[in-house]
């Protein structure tokens, strides 16, 4: 595993997502409040493309009839069978310990750090004035 540059920060506004390819794998990057989370673009159920799913909010409940709406906890709903996955961890909402989608660490670095550092010479063109998203995949 190694970090790879996949996008410019400006490519993915807050609340948006972008599909990228990292070493032959499709990965979907989410910008959640300025933080970036990366999931394999493949639902562990039957392989639905998560990048086409609805990004929604996790609803929990302390008891029947009570709905707790967690605006800060987003889930991606697979477009095929609506299974929900926490975009931070890839864990399914229904059976988090048994069913999860592969998640990857992300990092944001300034172009100046990248040009000097070990990430130079990737196929992704880097400019010193921009910030970049890296995925450890």
């Amino acid at each position, binding site marked *: 595993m190694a970090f790879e540059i996949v996008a410019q920060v400006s490519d993915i506004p807050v609340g948006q997502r972008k599909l990228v390819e990292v070493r032959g794998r499709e990965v979907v990057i989410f910008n959640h409040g300025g933080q970036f989370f990366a999931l394999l673009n493949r639902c562990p159920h039957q392989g639905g493309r998560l990048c086409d799913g609805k990004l929604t909010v996790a609803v929990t409940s302390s008891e*029947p009839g009570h709905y707790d709406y967690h605006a800060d906890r987003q889930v991606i709903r697979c477009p095929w069978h609506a299974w929900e996955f926490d975009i931070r961890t890839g864990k399914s909402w229904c059976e988090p310990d048994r069913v999860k989608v592969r998640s990857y660490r992300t990092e944001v670095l300034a172009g100046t750090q990248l040009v000097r550092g070990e990430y130079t010479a990737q196929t992704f063109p880097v400019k010193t004035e921009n910030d970049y998203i890296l995925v450890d995949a």
Partner: protein
Amino acid sequence: MISALRPIDCDMHPVVPNIRALVPYLPANWAASVDDRGIEGFDSISYPPNAPLSARPDWRPGGKGLPVSLDDYRRHVLDRLDVQWAIGNCLYGAHLAFSEDLGVALASAVNDWMVDTWLDPEPRMRASIVVAPQNPQRAAEEIDRCAPDRRFVQVLLPAMVEAPLGQRRYWPIYEAAQKHGLPVGIHAGSSYRHAVTPVGWPTYFVEDYASQALAFQGQLGSLISEGVFNKFPALTVVLLESGVTWLTPFLWRLTKFWRGTRSEVPWVTKPPIDIAREHIRLSAQPFDAPDDAATVARILEHLPGKDMLLFASDYPHHQFDGDAVLPQGLDQETIRRMAQDNPRATYRRLEEAL
């Protein structure tokens, strides 16, 4: 032979011979109304007395009618199968009355009749508390009234009443049951407020009886989805005379679609099949399997849990001939659990010294 295990019969049916038997237990107004109004009785058409299912021919006294006496039951099952304890589920139609006052009075009368006619004369007898689901609050009061008699080991509800049983209007019943450590038994049958099949009123009795499994599916889906087991985590629900083999495919389906729709019922945080394993038990009479051992063994493998099945004769209903009270193909371990371990774990009151 099952008698070697001294089985616990978790579903048999004391029959109220006629409404005259209940009159001594009715409040004065309702006792008088039986004559004034010419009330003939509340025998439910769920089990028409002459229907072949309603009693085995060799159990009908003199070949006709229903066996109504404790002596009949002793001779046919209690002594014959060497039953350790038997749980009497009286299906008399307190749930049928459109007047909830009359329903409540009938339920209380049935419970008092049960004490005098079955529990006091026969130390092996236990019983379910009959309630009128027409008024859940007063049903809860009836549970409070009867529960101090530790020979009442369960609360009894019909499989079809005014509304799905998971809905909050019924929660006073579950609250009272949990408070007294009583499981709630849901028995085949209907208040006949709705058609007994989801597609409308059927023409024939066989359709009514065979479709009962659909009612149990509806109730199981309701209990789980409405969050009854979240609110009452110590509650056990026993499905009585529901059959067995319908259960697993329905739970597969419920669990599968819950994964995609769970945000609608966010309190359901565990797969429904796991909730059922923890909270649902079934009497294994009828079993609803073909008569071959390999199929039965396969069905047992599919069941969510090994502790879910309870032995029952379903007396006097005609579910088996001779002494063949168990379906073929059950292994000895399963039979032992059904006959003893599972009933004892389900009905904690059974083991109490009285």
